């Protein structure tokens, strides 16, 4: 009997990570796209770090930071009663950091590619930054947002190194699909590994397919999103 728990866990992790990142990235991207802050480049570099850093490095640092033996981990433990090592919550935080550039980059470039006059026109019509963002800017970068959502979701589904470092392989808590496959291969259960891999493969393919279909229909109705 195939244990489907890792599949649900993966989906749950990817979904929560995507929702958190979407909420965080929109204001961050607005700031990155329009701010004239001197050290903006440094912020952009930090956001992009997970793209080039081996996942094990990120995982290792997070493991150190969250460990109850260290100051930050101790602080979390004492004041918030939060245990982030080898827990689902810790996994979410790690995934958010790890997938940050996959959400930020498409949205940021979407905003940058919009003519600046759209934002300015909304301002001259007496509209606040918030109204301008929600009524004008975001609706015109639908495909960028969608790309961000999908990349983040898919990237979280596929992550392995970070999860291994910070989450381990606790069934029902941190044992996601990629880890489960690894475990099964280690235990020579090639059949189960195969089934898991096939599920992951078709699951990811279907998501991407859906997105590209949807995206094509967006670009047909909106020439700005090409």
């Amino acid at each position, binding site marked *: 009997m195939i244990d489907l728990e890792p599949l649900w866990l993966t989906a749950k992790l990817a979904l929560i990570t995507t929702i958190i990142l979407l909420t965080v990235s929109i204001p961050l991207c607005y700031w990155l796209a329009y701010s004239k802050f001197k050290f903006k480049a440094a912020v952009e570099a930090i956001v992009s770090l997970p793209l080039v850093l081996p996942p094990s490095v990120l995982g290792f640092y997070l493991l150190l930071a969250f460990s109850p033996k260290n100051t930050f981990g101790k602080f979390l433990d004492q004041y918030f009663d939060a245990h982030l090592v080898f827990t689902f919550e810790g996994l979410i935080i790690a995934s958010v950091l790890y997938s940050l550039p996959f959400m930020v980059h498409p949205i940021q470039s979407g905003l940058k590619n919009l003519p600046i006059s759209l934002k300015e026109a909304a301002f*001259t019509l007496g509209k606040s930054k918030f109204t301008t963002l929600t009524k004008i800017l975001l609706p015109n970068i639908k495909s960028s947002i969608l790309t961000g959502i999908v990349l983040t979701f898919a990237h979280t589904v596929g992550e392995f190194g970070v999860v291994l470092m910070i989450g381990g392989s606790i069934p029902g808590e941190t044992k996601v699909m990629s880890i489960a496959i690894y475990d099964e291969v280690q235990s020579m259960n090639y059949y189960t590994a195969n089934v898991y891999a096939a599920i992951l493969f078709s699951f990811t393919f279907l998501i991407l397919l859906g997105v590209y279909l949807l995206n094509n229909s967006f670009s047909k109705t909106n020439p700005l999103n090409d």
Partner: protein
Amino acid sequence: MINFYTHKMLQTADGKLPLDVSFTVEKGQFLSIYGNSGAGKTTILRILAGLTEAEKVDIEVENEVWDNSQKKYHLPVQKRSIGFVFQDFALFPNLTVKENLEFALQKNDTPHIVAELIELMELQSLQNSKPQNLSGGQKQRVALARAIVRKPKILLLDEPLSALDDEMRFKLQDYIIKIHQHYQLTTLMISHTIAEIFKLSDKVIILDKGKIVKEGTPSSVFSEEKISSKFKLTGEIISISKSDIVYVVQVLSGNNIVKVIATEDEIKDFRIGQKVLVASKAFNPIIQVIS
């Protein structure tokens, strides 16, 4: 009345250029700003709108301070009673024509003004179209209508007609006049076309390398005491053709074409597209009533 002063260092292709400008515009006046590209025309409109900051700026509109760099006061763009028509129209692609106009409504506004503007600008048949399906002239009309929804005191037009062909241009000039008068606006327009400035504006400022080099009524600025002739019009040479031993030069002024005889020596200095002043004594023309 608008009192405007600014000093700002501009970064241009030829290096740094100080923009240093001061002028006043009476309420209800139509002011044109004329000058080479890179002279700082757009920057003036943007500073007045609050979209661009300047090192030194002092703006007062009908006794209300909009900017005062000494007192570090800056009224945000949203609070300024302006309508801005951008060079690229800046219509919102996700909204229909009508929704573009409705977006400009403020909290307690009645949507009545939207219907009124749709009618005034003859947009009835386009109101449910998205901007990408409109022609340049149609987009311009929508942008103009949208800028008026808030009933601003000041209308700012950044080369509104530069992208349009002549026929469309003349039509839109009429729409601009209509809007300016109907809503009793004070209008500032950037324009490259002398004929357009003559047709629309009461006052013109000529800007060169960040400084005002001339200001006054269009006729005093563009043809000041240059010739005693009273029958004058400015226009563009559109054709030169030989006719016996003389040449017929066609000049387009506004939407009128006039023909003038010139000698072989004279046409050596003429070329198509050149801006010219056509003059004749007030004694020559005859006037007939059009029935």
